[in-house]
């Protein structure tokens, strides 16, 4: 793998497309303070899918997102304009 590919993968790992989503109203105690919150499965540009949360504006299927941060190992994505 050349350097350009590695860099491209590093970038693509953080962006993707919403495969599916839901807004959760009824949660376990650990997440009760967060409701309602949106969880998503993102198809990553680098391949594969990951389950994460949405920060900020709500998303729909096929929306483009970028990873904003990890919180306790959970990826939080933000909608791309």
């Amino acid at each position, binding site marked *: 793998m050349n350097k350009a590919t590695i860099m491209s993968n590093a970038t693509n790992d953080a962006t993707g497309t919403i*495969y*599916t*989503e*839901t*807004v*959760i*109203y*009824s*949660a*376990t*105690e*650990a*997440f*009760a303070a*967060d409701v309602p*919150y949106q*969880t*998503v*499965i993102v198809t990553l540009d680098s391949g594969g*899918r*990951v*389950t*994460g*949360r949405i920060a900020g504006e709500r998303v729909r*299927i096929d929306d483009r997102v970028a990873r904003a941060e990890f919180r*306790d*190992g*959970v*990826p939080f994505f933000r909608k791309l304009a």
Partner: protein
Amino acid sequence: MRPVAIIGIGKTPFGAFPGRDLRSLAVEAGAKCLKNGHTGPSQIDAFFLGNFAGPSFVGQNHLAPYVSTALGIQGVPATRVEAACASSGSALFHAYTGVASGVYDTVLVVGVEKMTSQPTPKVTEILAGAGDCAGEIKAGSTFASLFAMIARRHMHEFGTTREHLAAVAVKNHANGALNPDAQMRKVITMEQAMGGKPIADPLNLYDCSLISDGAAAVLLAPAERAGEFTDKPVRVLGIAQASDFVALDQKPDITTFPAVRLASAKAYRMAGVGPADIQLGELHDCFTIAEIIAIEDLGFAARGEGGPFTLEGHTARTGDKPINTSGGLKSKGHPVGATGVAQICDLVLQMRCEAGERQVPRHSLGLAQNLGGSGATCVVTILGTI
């Protein structure tokens, strides 16, 4: 392999029973089953217990001998099987292999769960243990939310609507209202089913099965010996268990369950029948969308057509393919570890013409589909009196 028959069934009502513990429920179902099969504990060669989370719900482990000895069954192998909501379907599958292979003759299978002693958020947390705790659950997913994401994608790809989902709930409640052992014997309207309290979009309260206490049991024997125990034996014509990823995000397509397709293909082949031959079914409607997808994966309706098939009334008690005449998990109740065996009991009731007000006219070939988690385990069983 030799043919196997169901020679006895037994069930507790499903509901919230604050005064009952796990063992008393399991013993009630097991004892009723032994009596129904005109046999006693000393004649049992092996005992299988389907239970998802007794250790978490009630703090008791080593559950199989804990229950079997209370039934008076001594000395024989007693084994607990855990496969999330397919725990007792899987227990039945393993019991079947023991009888079919000739290792055992008479095997008792009990499924049990005692859930209502915990508050709802704790129940949600325990159930979430059937998902991928290092991924989807850590991100805040609940089981309702996993099936909500499945529903969203199914709607997106096939045009499935909120009305389709509601039609499943309305139908199953109408059936459950006629079942004296059901937890929620209440008819609901489309309007109610569409407007329930939101749980995880697009699913509301009426799309979700119930939190329940209950137990169910079946007794197996070689078909050639069935006449010693009952004059109404029901044959296990086909049975198969299949597996898949636990995490939803590992599945290439979440609008279908490969484990359901695999298990049903094997069970159909074993029974020498196809989806069109099946006269009635007990399917795993843990959420309304799960019944719609099961209808498609089992081949009752084409891919993406499960919603319209339901709305058109095909799966109603009076339709050409009655599904969940017991009320399903939605209305009958869903004590998760009991559900797989309870489905079998409900099919056998229909096949013996003992289903009372909900009896359907065609009942000689039935199918049960028991799903674990978001599709990581599936057991499909085909029963016949033909």
